[in-house]
């Protein structure tokens, strides 16, 4: 055993507590070597071990899995059966801290990492969605972070040939020092191609595929992702950010898919956070957990390095991108090497599966690591951290937006609407999304700015999927329980608005420091709310990601649970888009509108106000609304549908008018409060366009099932005309809606 027994001070620098160090010593029965300590530090980091979140995430495991789930939480990504012998895998993951430190590479490798998770399951990645949050749009640092993040996502995703089909771009000052970059990837495979990560079969070869290992990204999961930034402390951590090479990832994807199709790998695992350490321990631990004789012997001298001088702990902790670990039977090895050589992918045998029950790693002929793999992968610390309701919450909730001055005259309502659709959160995001390829793979049926991205899986039958991501940090700040439920409800509505049936959920939980009891209370409430809502809607959680320590100094971000919902289409040809396209169609508002402005876009844009209660959630209504939207699509009754959320009906109408190039004439009941009608953010609502010939059939269906539905107007002309209030031409709406981001971040074209 080489490596000087390490002092506790070193373990602290690696992000471990004294208590955790003691725990390592007792797991090994001796002090760890340098390399072992580095491995424990990354595997027991918050990012890898979920030590603070585990006790709360159990709630998701308790939700009934339903009859579609093939692989559940805890794997690289969950897998659901979608019929026709196909399975879909999807997951959302954060890359927040790296994207603040080095926006381009941070965001690029965020895409690369989640894509490898999907590939690891045996799937061909088929689409990406990006849920992004930045500080105020006009803040100087946003001008540094946003263009880099967008270019990084585009630069990586576009080079991989993955269409970007949706996501969000949200601005709020709480994200100024902690931008959120959450990337969701979805993949598809024949059910029989699902891969495992369990290293089984004594004597099988352990093969490292892809890029060489370098010094980039060391400590990415521990010192970067599992710690709070001090003021201005970001740039010094730049070496902990990985550097991406999408071309290498592209050929890695193609070669791995060929290996899967030929049945050449026993198991596969991507190298992401914690690099080789995580891949070796998890495959070995999974092999042992599967019941077989297991263990692994690895020779670090065989790992292809970018810098020959790397020490063993550096090789083990490196987060160099574009690498996979495959377990291969000896008689398949030659064929594996032929396939990888054809694609120009480096493949190197670095070890073997053993029956020792231990992970043994040699370097320069000596054993530098000899550990029980379960102690790293599964036996990490679990904390039930203290929680405390935030001290300012009562005051915040009592600060009701009802007292804020509101526009009343037609002119004031008109200028309020124009200011809102030009605001950074409601304005057109074309400046961002035009930098992403949405067409590649020739199966994109809907992409942003539609409510959900829709991808065709089978050209013969039209089988397809829809995906949406949603989250609202302001709602969650006011009430994390309700805020998380609202995020789920909105994502479901978005998926259902296209006509797809919601079937499964993934989530990315972005919060401040778990060591702050008030943050931990927000986390506990949000997971409780989300789990209850998933159970109520019958949607299993197939996997997800927790990102803690999103705070600068003592100021955490608004708690931001981002929820991704997967929907299923029997035939994507019946998809419904948001644009009003047919003159004379009736516009129907589904759901009930109440004066709910807590956390609303109006309160923020007009008064920079955040207070009161978020909109109430009625999950039964959400479920019914989704069923009505799907039924409307199935029976061909809808020419357009758009969910109502941020900015209320006003924002939805403007988006649908501009998308379809048609105006609308809106007539509210005489007694109605036009301001509330236009800007309330009541949940459980959608606006649909219905041809006159279908109107009675559709309204009868709503009445029979008890969903409030009322006619609010008609698709008409080239203005948005709100009777007795104001009229605005589509040209003026377009100008207001589209000018904001180019003015802030520069014209995209010549």
């Amino acid at each position: 055993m080489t490596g000087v027994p390490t002092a506790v001070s070193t373990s602290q620098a690696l992000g471990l507590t004294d208590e955790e160090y003691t725990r390592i010593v007792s797991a090994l029965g001796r002090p760890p070597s340098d390399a072992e300590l580095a491995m424990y530090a990354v595997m027991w980091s918050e990012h890898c071990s979920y030590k603070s979140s585990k006790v709360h995430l159990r709630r998701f495991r308790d939700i009934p899995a339903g009859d579609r789930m093939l692989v559940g939480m805890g794997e690289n990504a969950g897998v659901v059966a979608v019929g026709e012998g196909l399975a879909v895998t999807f997951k959302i993951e954060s890359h927040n801290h790296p994207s603040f430190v080095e926006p381009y590479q941070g965001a690029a490798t965020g895409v690369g990492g989640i894509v490898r998770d999907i590939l690891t399951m045996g799937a061909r990645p088929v689409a990406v969605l990006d849920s992004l949050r930045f500080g105020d749009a006009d803040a100087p640092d946003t001008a540094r972070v946003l263009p880099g993040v967008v270019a990084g996502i585009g630069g990586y995703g576009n080079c991989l040939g993955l269409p970007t089909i949706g996501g969000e771009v949200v601005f709020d000052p709480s994200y100024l020092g902690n931008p959120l970059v959450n990337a969701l990837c979805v993949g598809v495979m024949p059910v029989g191609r699902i891969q495992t990560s369990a290293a089984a079969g004594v004597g099988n070869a352990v093969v490292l595929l892809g890029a060489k290992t370098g010094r980039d990204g060391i400590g990415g999961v521990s010192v970067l992702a599992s710690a709070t930034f001090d003021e201005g402390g970001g740039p010094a951590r730049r070496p902990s950010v990985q550097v991406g090479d999408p071309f290498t990832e592209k050929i890695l994807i193609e070669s791995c898919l060929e290996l899967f199709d030929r049945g050449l790998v026993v198991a596969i695992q991507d190298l992401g956070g914690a690099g080789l350490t995580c891949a070796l321990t998890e495959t070995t631990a999974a092999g042992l957990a599967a019941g077989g004789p297991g263990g692994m012997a690895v020779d670090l001298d065989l790992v292809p390095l970018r810098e020959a001088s790397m020490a063993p702990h550096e090789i083990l902790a490196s987060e160099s991108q574009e690498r996979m670990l495959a377990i291969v039977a000896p008689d398949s090895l030659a064929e594996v090497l032929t396939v990888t050589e054809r694609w120009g992918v480096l493949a190197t045998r670095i070890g073997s599966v053993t029956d020792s029950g231990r992970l043994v790693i040699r370097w320069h002929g000596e054993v530098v690591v000899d550990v029980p793999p379960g102690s790293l992968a599964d036996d990490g610390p679990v904390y039930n951290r203290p929680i405390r309701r935030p001290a300012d919450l009562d005051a915040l909730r009592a600060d009701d937006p009802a007292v804020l001055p509101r526009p009343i005259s037609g002119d004031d309502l008109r200028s309020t609407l124009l200011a809102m659709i030009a605001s950074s959160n409601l304005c057109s995001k074309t400046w961002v999304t035009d930098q992403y390829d949405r067409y590649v793979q020739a199966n994109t049926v809907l992409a942003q700015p539609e409510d959900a991205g829709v991808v065709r899986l089978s050209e013969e039958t039209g089988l397809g999927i829809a995906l949406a991501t949603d989250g609202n940090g302001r709602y969650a700040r006011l009430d994390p329980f309700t805020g998380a439920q609202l995020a789920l409800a909105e994502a479901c509505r978005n998926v259902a608005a296209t006509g797809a049936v919601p079937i499964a959920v993934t989530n990315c939980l972005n919060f401040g420091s778990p060591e702050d009891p008030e943050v931990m209370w927000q986390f506990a409430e949000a997971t409780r709310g989300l789990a209850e809502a998933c159970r109520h809607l019958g949607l299993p959680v197939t996997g997800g990601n927790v990102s803690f320590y999103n705070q600068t100094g003592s100021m955490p971000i608004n708690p931001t649970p981002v929820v991704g919902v997967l929907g299923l289409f029997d035939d994507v040809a019946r998809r419904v888009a948001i644009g009003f396209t047919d003159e004379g169609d009736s516009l129907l508002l589904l759901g009930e509108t109440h004066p709910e402005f807590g956390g609303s876009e109006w309160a923020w844009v007009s008064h920079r106000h955040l207070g009161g209660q978020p909109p109430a959630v009625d999950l039964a209504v959400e479920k019914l609304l989704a069923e009505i939207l799907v039924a409307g699509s199935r029976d061909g009754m809808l020419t357009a549908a758009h969910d109502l959320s941020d900015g209320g009906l006003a924002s939805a109408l403007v988006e649908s008018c501009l998308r379809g190039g048609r105006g609308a004439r809106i007539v509210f009941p005489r007694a109605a409060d036009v301001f509330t009608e236009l800007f309330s953010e009541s949940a459980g609502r959608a606006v649909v366009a219905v041809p006159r010939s279908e109107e009675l059939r559709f309204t009868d269906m709503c009445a029979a099932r008890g969903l409030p539905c009322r006619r609010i107007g008609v698709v008409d002309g080239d203005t948005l005309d709100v009777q007795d209030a104001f009229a605005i031409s589509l040209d003026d709406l377009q100008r207001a809606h589209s000018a904001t981001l180019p003015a802030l971040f520069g014209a995209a074209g010549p």
Partner: protein
Amino acid sequence: MTRRIGVVTFPGSLDDRDAAHAIQLGGGEAVALWHGDTELSGVDAVVLPGGFSYGDYLRAGAIARFSPMVGAVVDAARDGLPVLGICNGFQVLCEAGLLPGALSRNVGLHFVCRDQRLRMENTSTAWTSEYTPGADVIIPVKHGEGRYIVSPATLAQLEYDGLVVARYLGGNPNGSVADIAGVCNAGGTVVGLMPHPEHAVEPLTGPGSDGLAMFRPVLSGVFTD
């Protein structure tokens, strides 16, 4: 008889399966060709698809032109084999000297993906003969290096000879000289286009089906045989 059209896959090709799909929708048979081979398998025409061949780290298309398959395609093209280069394929054709000019970084310095209006100008090439001259079509563009540049003398010659195949309408996405979106060789057999006709072959997955006609003419036999 069904026409067989080869689609070359380089490491880093992205729209190769999409091009094959478009060829099938157009009634042809797509034949996969590998960058490292030299055997054209008797195809009637070749498509060089979009993507980032070999990563395009040096300059788009700069490495691909030296691949064995491009060598074979260039030789065959000089003997009249119809070749369509889309996006990265256009860049390869320029690098290989089959088409004049070069594609450089977009003026806005951003990757641009949008549904682009085009005017079809030369409609007597091997790939565009089903369009009406002056047809106003919508075909997506998606590229970071699509700004066509060429010397003033060559530009004048291209215009004089009518070798501009398509021009951007309603806004030039990349700063191309004279709004040029695509050009062809003097014989009209080799066409390079920045827009992606394979992404406008069915209304369900694109802005329409204006691009489908691009994959039919070589199939009808007007140029081959």
